[in-house]
């Protein structure tokens, strides 16, 4: 019994020691992420980059852009692999469309967004982030709800949501 109580006390002490610390650090990340519709994803994404603890909002926007790029690149690899082994013509058609969408995101949308943020003309970053999210949606919709279903829904949703986060943060720079 006493063991349990002392464990509990330790637990409580632990929480009270570390909880306020984590609560008070990175408040710019939290204030910024509150202005996006995906708070948890935003916080975890930004905080995964150590630079986020000292970055200004424009720095956070760049981290967000990098995260879209990273996830999009991984998804493009996923798509290419699936395309290589696909035999169903509907699936192949949808996956090819996704290749186009993701190429647009990686080669155009993200570079434009990064340049716009770095050069302090954020409205073009907002526009490109919107476009990136739309491309992820387009890729997903290319599977049209018909059989076979989209094998990359999770990835598409992630890229979409990260694009929304980027768009929201870039809007704060206007």
């Amino acid at each position: 019994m006493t063991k349990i109580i002392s464990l509990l006390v330790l637990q409580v002490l632990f929480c009270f020691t570390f909880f306020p610390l984590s609560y008070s650090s990175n408040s710019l990340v939290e204030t910024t992420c509150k202005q996006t519709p995906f708070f948890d994803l935003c916080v975890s994404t930004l905080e995964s980059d150590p630079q986020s603890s000292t970055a200004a909002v424009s720095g956070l926007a760049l981290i967000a852009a990098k995260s879209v790029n990273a996830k999009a690149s991984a998804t493009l690899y996923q798509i290419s692999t699936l395309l290589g082994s696909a035999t169903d013509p509907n699936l192949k058609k949808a996956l090819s469309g996704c290749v186009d969408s993701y190429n647009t995101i990686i080669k155009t949308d993200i570079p434009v967004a990064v340049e716009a943020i770095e050069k302090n003309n954020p409205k073009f970053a907002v526009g490109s982030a919107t476009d990136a999210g739309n491309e992820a949606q387009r890729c997903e919709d290319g599977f049209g709800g018909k059989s076979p279903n989209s094998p990359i829904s999770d990835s598409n949703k992630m890229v979409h949501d990260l694009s929304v986060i980027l768009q929201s943060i870039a809007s704060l720079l206007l």
Partner: protein
Amino acid sequence: MADTRPFLPVSSSDGSIPSEPLANRRKPMKVQLSIFFGLLTVGLLAALLTSNNGSDFVTDNEHGPLVSSTTATTKPETLQAVSRGPAAGVSEKSNRLFADENTVAFPWNNSMLSWQRTAFHFQPERNWMNDPNGPLFYKGWYHFFYQYNPHAPVWGDIVWGHAVSKDLIHWLHLPLAMVADHTYDKSGVWTGSATFLPDGKIVMLYTGSNADAVQVQNLAYPADHSDPLLINWVKYSGNPVLVPPPGILSKDFRDPTTAWLTSEGKWRFSIGSKINKTGVALVYDTKDFINYEKLDGLLRAVDGTGMWECVDFFPVSKTEENGLDTSVNNPDVKHVMKVSLDDDRHDYYAVGTYNEKNVTFIPDDPEIDVGIGLRYDYGVYYAAKTFYDQNKNRRVLWGWIGESDSEAADLQKGWASVQSIPRTVLLDKKTGTHLLQWPVEEIDSLRLNSYEFNQVTIQAGSVVPLEVGPATQLDIMAEFEIDKEALEKATGSNVTFSCSSSGGAIERGALGPFGLLVLADDSLSERTPVYFYIAKGSDGNLKTFFCNDQSRSSVAPDVKKQIYGSMVPVLKGENLSLRVLVDHSIIESFAQGGRTVITSRTYPTKAIYGAAKLFLFNNATEAGVSASLKIWQMNSAFIRPYPNLDNKSQ
């Protein structure tokens, strides 16, 4: 299990992505059955209500009522203007991604894409363009400079493009005027304006985004004032001449205006900025464009409007029908202040009084102050800039018209953006509150054969085809008269109408909508209505709205589908009048002589080339309408590179 539903925007109250599925519980049989039947009912209803595309309008003057298609269940929300408060904007912003673009990418082919290029609007041969810069008239040529990306059809690597014309319509491309070749504009040669000195020389003040992305102002001037083409430009060796002042962030200091002379003989100009969320116009005086004095006052400031880009400030005559030099100031003029709002990508203006001594601009009506009132254009139109054309004694307005399609399509077609046809700007003497914009008269030189239609009757709920031959390059002048009896008999209501929140041209009212169907195919599966809608208040007063409905402009899902427009003042005794310039993927529409203007970009997939047609329509329930029109086929302006430029001495 993967969530296969479309990515619905998450509401602001739920900031997290869906996590674990609900715990499985065995539900009682009753509940399961009722859920099943409920879904069945919903499914049946949905099947009944879903419209068959295309047959919303009755064709060929049949008198039946129009079948209005109910909104399909996946109709996207109309895009609202971005709210000014960040907290309130969160769910809007998540909606914005899919508010007006959805589903599969359209398989654009080269035929559809190449059709989109305009025949008589200014655009470079390829790649990206945005803001108009430093327009002027000099030694027999109109000059136009513009923000340009020489490398791609998207924004980036911005430099100054250049073109010349004798008549503001037939343009010839020249080499780039300025590139990003100094530390003070390394990150971008951004927007600027020209000022004429008393000796006729030109100075250009422009914003450079410097190597550290700080916004600074730089001075440039023609290398050779005897070259009428002004091909080469020199940047002042002492640049930058202005850096962000204390209290202004280095990223909020851009787009200097043309300067005007004060009564003390100094040059005065403005630069837009913001302080927190208040948009402001900073003011500077200079004698030599090298040394500057920042004045203490702000020309104008308006809370909640955000960053003011591309400020423009100029006088308009209260009595004459000509333009005024930017320096004119006397009791017979009013002043106009115009800003481009970064927050919502729209251009706003206000008419008011300039006090030189106090350095203030006071709008005539603070309810429609700068940034919260009237817009130059209720469609796609931004970064506009005027210049005084001393050649023809008029003030001429340029505006950037961006694309409304996807970046992927822009990449495929290799270009993005056009400029509006230059417009003259005058104070509307009849209302005193609005400006009148009108395409410059030189555009009439493009008119070829014409078609006249006199007093065509369009019964309530009908469509009338207009035989005008090809319908992708047109100049349409139209007047509409609505049945007077119907106007009087219609019951008024308190319901407020707005173009953007309405159901578009298929939403029938007693006294509207009626107007034109532009870029429509025979079956009307694609069409862009440009129309009037008269709303009667419960007090019996009539309010006229002027709208442009993109919602069915194309079957392609990856283009914007908004409904643009605004109330347009119609004075007693005035007929409803309309001018529409159709030029492939751009439509410019002017109501009541240019009192309210809407520009839109349209990307049909079927209503292109010979399949594009023009119709009159009247979707009102109670009123007949008669229309008289004169319609011209429009020639191309053959915009191309200046010939034999290498032979010219530089």
